[in-house]
């Protein structure tokens, strides 16, 4: 027990010492790790923002409109309202009178609004309920529950547009995951390669340790600690660069272009935790695993 503890302590000492004494190589290696992670961060933000934008757009279509028959009594209307509210995900239900509807049309149409002139007297538009749902996926149920109900003439939602948007969102999500997956893979590859180059340049040292009678674990230990520290430092640097860089950019965009872009962009806060987690995991993980794997070859002596 005491022996093991002493050996462990000595391994840690060697690890920190080794890192310090090889700092010129270490700097290059940490810099590469940071650089790769910065790239990963930029892409992550890019893809999350695109995703965000698409998701944001879909929420603009998250309503179901229920057109009512003319002249129905309050009982029927209450029943429709209640049925609608019973569905999961319903956020609000708003009554839109036929006059209001015409007015809205007029606004929407803008320059072509004159086409609607003269419709006021014999307004062909129906009264309706506009039901907002929390997320688009809840719309389908609402529609089904209301269809065929007494007093309901027609239930309408932008199924086509929504389906298309959801599909696009899906593809972007899948595409994003694929791209990020590739990037993570490539980052891992570059980082482990960097570690490999660092370890390779010290193969003679590893050999000497072996010949003096150090066990593989004893030799590996300090290198793993070094690798982990390099990875950790690299990821911390990249987290700082990505987070503050993006915060600066985000502010700039917000101040200069107001809402135009801001809605598309994911907020720095939202990504901070993810990035910290992902980066540390990659940096430290690859630092450790990379050291172990790249040493394997040199330990067989």
């Amino acid at each position, binding site marked *: 027990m005491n022996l093991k503890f002493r050996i462990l302590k000595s391994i840690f000492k060697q690890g920190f010492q080794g890192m310090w004494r090889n700092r010129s190589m270490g700097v290059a290696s940490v810099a590469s790790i940071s650089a790769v992670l910065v790239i990963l961060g930029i892409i992550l933000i890019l893809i999350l923002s695109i995703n965000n934008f698409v998701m944001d757009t879909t929420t603009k279509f998250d309503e179901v409109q229920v057109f009512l028959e003319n002249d129905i009594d309050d009982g029927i209307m209450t029943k429709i309202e209640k049925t609608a509210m019973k569905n999961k995900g319903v956020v609000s239900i708003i009554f839109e009178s036929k006059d209001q509807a015409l007015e809205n049309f007029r606004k929407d149409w803008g320059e072509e609004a004159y086409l609607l002139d003269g419709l006021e007297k014999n307004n062909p538009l129906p009264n309706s309920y506009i039901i907002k749902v929390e997320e688009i996926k809840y719309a389908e149920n609402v529609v089904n529950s209301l269809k065929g109900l007494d007093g309901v003439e027609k239930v309408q939602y932008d199924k086509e547009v929504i389906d298309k948007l959801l599909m696009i969102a899906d593809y972007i999500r899948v595409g994003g995951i694929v791209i990020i997956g590739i990037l993570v893979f490539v980052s891992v590859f570059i980082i482990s390669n960097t570690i490999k180059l660092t370890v390779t340049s010290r193969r003679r040292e590893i050999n000497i*340790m072996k010949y003096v*009678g150090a066990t593989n674990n*004893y030799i590996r230990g300090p290198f793993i600690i070094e690798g982990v520290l390099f990875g950790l430092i690299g990821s911390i640097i990249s987290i700082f660069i990505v987070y503050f860089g993006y915060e600066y950019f985000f502010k700039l965009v917000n101040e200069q272009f107001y809402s135009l872009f801001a809605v598309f962009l994911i907020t720095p806060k939202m990504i901070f935790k993810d990035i910290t987690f992902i980066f540390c995991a990659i940096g430290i993980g690859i630092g450790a695993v990379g050291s172990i794997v790249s040493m394997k070859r040199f330990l067989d002596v």
Partner: protein
Amino acid sequence: MIKLISVSKEYDNGVKALSDINLEISKGEFVFLVGSSGAGKSTLTKLILKEEEVSEGSIYLNELDITEVPNRRIPYIRRNVGVVFQDFRLLPNKTVYENVAFAMEIVGAHPKDIRRRVPMILSLVNLSRKASSFPDQLSGGEQQRVSIARSIINNPPVLIADEPTGNLDPETAWDIMRALVDINGRGTTIVMATHARDIVNSMKKRVITLENGRIIRDEQKGGYELEVPNTEKHI
């Protein structure tokens, strides 16, 4: 202690460095290994340390056939063998003190023991002043003495020294030899490959002479006598 049974070594590039070596060295012996450059002395020491694998034959160290030992166990075998390497093999990123202490740390020695023993051994090889120097700040002979210090720090039962005095002036070389004799007197088996004719001749120990990878002479209380049968022309 050390027993080689029809050991041969052929390197990957086809060089036959050792052929059919049979040899037995008992516990506590002091053996010189002599032979001209390229005769196979270092190869023999490398085989005992399992730095190289034998091509044929077996090597017993303390009744244990080391050619059969699984990789995992090799470090523990090496700890029983102190080695002075011909090319020193000091860790470039560690000071003299740390290089010597390293051999103790890997076996989990107590820090107190390390702090006591390392300075002692360093003063034995006359390097106390250089404790905090790095290997590339040392002269050739100083590096060699660090390698010697490291090899004996753990009081190994076997000590293999590959030309431990090649970079030392005669005076210092004799200091080292006295130290080795002293260690040998306390029970350590010593195998020393060397070209130092004076030393071999005056020590009157067992001398094994290698030539072209074969043992051509093995004498108790021998001397340094090299016949080079098939030399190429001299200038």
